[in-house]
């Protein structure tokens, strides 16, 4: 089985499991007391946000290793991770406002967390715009690595800043220093959804990586 086929299977499995997670979320997970059914979107929103961050961090790491090892496979991985990360960032930026309208009464606020996700999105798009504007393969890989590393440093800075600005956004409830403050049933649903999103990320990246490899091969003849 080629990598593209494996990736496709992973994605199909992931999507089926995502359906399963939502059956569990809608039918077998308690409704949140204050937010009502609107809270259900949380099981897509939060895993998508975490996966986006993961995609950006891996993009930066691939950049660091590329500069030392000069292995084109790392560059292809970074390219794939950026593209898949953009898709996940779009999911976060779409599901967020859908939740925000009934709960906050507004689609968008310039809240620190919303702004930082928008930053991530712009960084990922900028990264791909840069890739499109450089024709030489080795140069493109080096430039992308440099931008990827800068992006990760910036994301770190944004995270520090987020805590300094007043925020409307719910605070982290799972990934925080103290114990998760979430009922067991909700936590389990969330963790399952995390797993599914991770699977989807890996599946998409594998397919995208296969495309990048094909492109490189056809380029070199």
């Amino acid at each position, binding site marked *: 089985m080629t990598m593209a086929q494996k990736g496709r299977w992973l994605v199909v499995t992931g999507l089926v499991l995502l359906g399963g997670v939502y059956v569990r979320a809608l039918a077998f997970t308690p409704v949140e007391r204050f937010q009502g059914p609107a809270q259900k979107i949380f099981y897509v929103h939060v895993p998508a946000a975490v996966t986006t961050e993961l995609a950006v961090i891996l993009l930066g790491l691939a950049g660091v290793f590329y*500069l030392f090892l000069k292995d084109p496979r790392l560059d292809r991985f970074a390219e794939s991770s950026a593209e898949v990360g953009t898709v996940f960032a779009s999911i976060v930026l779409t599901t967020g406002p859908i939740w925000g309208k009934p709960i906050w009464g507004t689609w968008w606020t310039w809240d620190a967390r919303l702004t930082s996700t928008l*930053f991530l999105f*712009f*960084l990922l798009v*900028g990264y791909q*715009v*840069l890739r499109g*504007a*450089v*024709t030489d393969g080795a*140069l493109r890989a*080096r*430039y992308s*690595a*440099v*931008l990827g*590393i*800068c992006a990760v*440093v*910036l994301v770190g*800075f*944004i995270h520090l*800043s987020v805590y*300094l600005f007043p925020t409307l956004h719910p605070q982290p409830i799972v990934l925080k220093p103290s114990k998760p403050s979430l009922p067991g049933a909700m936590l389990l649903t969330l963790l399952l959804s995390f797993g599914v999103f991770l699977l989807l990320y890996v599946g998409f990246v594998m397919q995208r990586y296969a495309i990048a490899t094909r492109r490189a091969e056809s380029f070199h003849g």
Partner: protein
Amino acid sequence: MGELLRQTWTIARKDLLLEFRSRTAIVSAVVFTALVLTVFNFGRDPTAVSALDLAPSILWVTFTFAAMLGLNRAFQLELENQAIEGLLISPLDRRSLYWGKLLANLAFVAVVEAVGLPLFVLFFNVPVGHVLLPLLAVMALATLGFVAVGTLFSAMVVRTRFAELMLPVLLLPFLLLPLTYAVQATARLLADRPLSEVAGWLRLLAAYDIVFLAVASWLFPYTVDE
């Protein structure tokens, strides 16, 4: 270390001398700054929004755009007659090339800001005399942050298609953070808040500068080497 500094100064001096002799870029940047300030004046309703409320945003948006204009110039200059090849062949430490370009860019943006600030005070009737020193500190720190990242990126974008458009697209997400810090600090200064409220923002700006100066001088050689 001494050698590094000497090379840095040589590069910076070369750029500044070129700029001083032609004066095209600096004059355009200064005029551009004055124009943006004028545009802001017509872009608001003076009966509804007082100048003081908008002042920090006006000041920093203007400076951000002006800095970006200057940064585009830094390596564009070296493309003519493949001057960059000459620089890269010469026995020059790549880091000193970055630091030299950085110094020249800083000087360029500082001149633009030195003209922009009095114009801003004049046009919007915002007295800054009593907070001039802390305001200059905010300006210095924010500008250093802008230029630290901008110099790195301008070295990359000159060799891409649509370089003039590419720089803002890549750079603006990086400038938004120091811009936010600077606007917050300036707003507090202009509202006569105690300096202790500004100190935190200054520290953040300084941290941003240190981190990005370090990252950029590490990464810069990778953007110019063949």
